[in-house]
């Protein structure tokens, strides 16, 4: 699927071109916005230069490496599970998006909002259950199964979690695993920018209303 910014110009209709130009023309990149602001006298003695400098120092300094709470074997199994939930397609999957690292760091912090459970216990139990279920069904550990067998084992668990049937510990584990995989992937750079193609957080001089938004075109028209 091509990105909206590149297109088969020769294939698109004149109307699509006009729409796209209107959208592009309405966008200001950040430098243009700051120059625009620089011409105005604004209250409170704000300086435009301040905006630029602070954009660069926006991110926190790199934190020290998160403590490891999973064994190598557990981490490998977790990684595979996340990749099965969000695999590599035309964009990166969970492993490339460093979702296993995100999940392990969250387990180490054991935040309150995954409430009711000590995440370390839930994940230790859950990962162990996965291998036990794999042995029971296929006489092999989970990582020794082929992809089709791995999906056969997980899909009913996922369906139960999606349906909200959270009585069993294994389903609770699946629910938490899917939640954290989804959270970690779609807030990653790869997930938000490449997969979802987030376009916001970008100043524009006018808000493009419904008529000129690219929503009306299917992606292939761009």
């Amino acid at each position, binding site marked *: 699927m091509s990105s909206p910014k590149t297109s088969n110009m020769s294939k698109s209709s004149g109307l699509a071109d006009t729409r796209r130009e209107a959208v592009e023309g309405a966008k200001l990149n950040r430098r243009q916005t700051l120059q625009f602001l620089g011409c105005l006298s*604004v209250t409170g003695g704000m300086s435009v230069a301040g905006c630029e400098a602070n954009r660069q120092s926006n991110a926190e300094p790199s934190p020290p490496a998160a403590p490891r709470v999973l064994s190598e074997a557990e981490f490998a199994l977790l990684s595979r599970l996340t990749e099965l939930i969000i*695999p590599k397609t035309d964009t990166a999957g969970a492993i490339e998006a460093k979702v296993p690292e995100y999940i392990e760091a969250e387990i180490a912090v054991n935040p309150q909002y995954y409430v009711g459970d000590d995440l370390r216990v839930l994940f230790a139990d859950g990962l162990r259950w996965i291998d036990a279920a794999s042995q029971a069904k296929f006489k092999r550990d989970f990582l020794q199964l082929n992809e089709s067998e791995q999906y056969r084992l997980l899909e009913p668990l996922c369906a139960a979690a999606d349906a909200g049937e959270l009585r069993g510990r294994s389903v609770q584990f699946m629910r938490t695993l899917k939640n954290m995989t989804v959270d970690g992937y779609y807030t990653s750079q790869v997930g938000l920018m490449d997969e*979802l193609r*987030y*376009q*916001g957080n970008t*100043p524009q*001089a006018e808000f493009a*209303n419904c008529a000129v938004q690219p929503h009306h075109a299917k992606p292939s028209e761009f």
Partner: protein
Amino acid sequence: MKRDYEVIVIGAGASGGTAASHLARAGVDVLVLEGGPRIQTQTDFNTHGLPFEYPRRVIPIMRPGKPGFDSPRSCGVGGKTLLWNAVALRYSQRDFKGATREDAGMDWPIDYADMAPYYSKVEREVGLCGQRDGLEDLPDGEFLPPAPLKCSDEILQRGAARLGIKLIHVRKATLTRFTNGRPACHYCGNCMAGCDIVAKYNSADVQLYPAERETGKLEIRENSIVYELAVDNESRVSEVKFFDRESGERAAVRGRKVIMACSCEQSVGLLLMSKSSRFPNGLGNNSQQVGKHFIPHVVCQIEGFLKELIGKSTGNDEGFLDHAYIPSFMHDRQRDYPRSFGIQLGYHNRRRAMWARQVRGMGASFKQAVRERYPAFMEVAGYMEMLPNSESFIDLDPVETDQYGLPRTRARWHLTDSDWKRWRDMRRWCIKIMEESGAELLRDDEKPLGNHALGGCRMGANARTSVVDAHCRVHEVLNLYIVDGSVFPSASEKNPTLTMMALAARVADHIAQEFKRGGAQS
């Protein structure tokens, strides 16, 4: 810093900022005491942060090392206006006289006609955008052009219209044209992370700092946490006692008049903390009305995906968050509960996709399903009024204190059968409008949420059933006023901040006139 002022204003948010700046511009000598720090709007917020820039994917409000918003007592100069969504709606006569109309709750002791000139004054001062819709129940204001509706808004507009319901442009205290030295909004979707260009109104950059610079009558003392109002033998506030948030050093100042604008819970809390032999239940509380009649807005949220937008491409469409609003329609219709609700919609930004958890399945088809739904996500939030009842009130926690050693406030609200009928009908209508607009709905947990704390020091003519009079003066304390959301005797379903600001402007005018007449004995 002096010891004596004509007026002391406690709190530098929407109400405090309006009252203090208007008084200073009228020539009155004002001190503002604000619990939190001064915040540099353009540099201190993580306005443009993205989740992947942070290991835990949560974007802190303040940049590293910048103080602000560390407790409800100490947000900062500008208060919650630094982070608010800026929806700005006028209340109507139905809102001011709801009890007369429907025999439920309590009337305000003022009319829409009393407030109209102050709504206009504040709107012209800070800049509002919106469309003149000519609706009796949602009076038009002084508007800059509205922001255009989004695709999702237009889809809902068509769906709502098929149900006989009107969807309009939202009204916001955000500029859509360059006005008074402030730029127009550039639709970056970060309103609630701190508008670093001040296109969105905040009381610090738009009212307080200009008045401080231009009048010579306004002094702002930040990092000043007021912990007690002392009272004299004539039931007048004699001293405003505060300590410095950083050094802990204590001090006191005197004002001929004192205006509390601490925000709903904090104003109640300050009165309850100010006990004395004359006022053993807390200042102004011999009537035992302080803290009572707490009436926050009660909310339902319905989320889903608009089928018309599933599979379409993504645009830069965060805008200034919500661009549309569905005003109350039930107030004119047959129903089995009094009062009404309105619906806010489309206020999400697109950098979090929490809803992805609820998309079914796993694997490549799941990933595709999330991708297709990303541009189609839409939500509506019904906001309803609740009526006062004996189980909804604010008090002080007898045990828990905050980081400053001051008692925390506790706010609890409870829905009566009548409120539940309204909430369920509101939820039913939200679902119906979404479904009529072709939405694939997500599961909601069917639990009411609270937002917009209101009530606790309500206005009224009768000193036995209210805390302040029609000029927001505390019945029992002749030189004390309250101008924040705590004084609302009824909540309406409409966002309350513009009404707080108009009320503050009215009170400031009243006090300034009194000083001019040379009165101000009280």
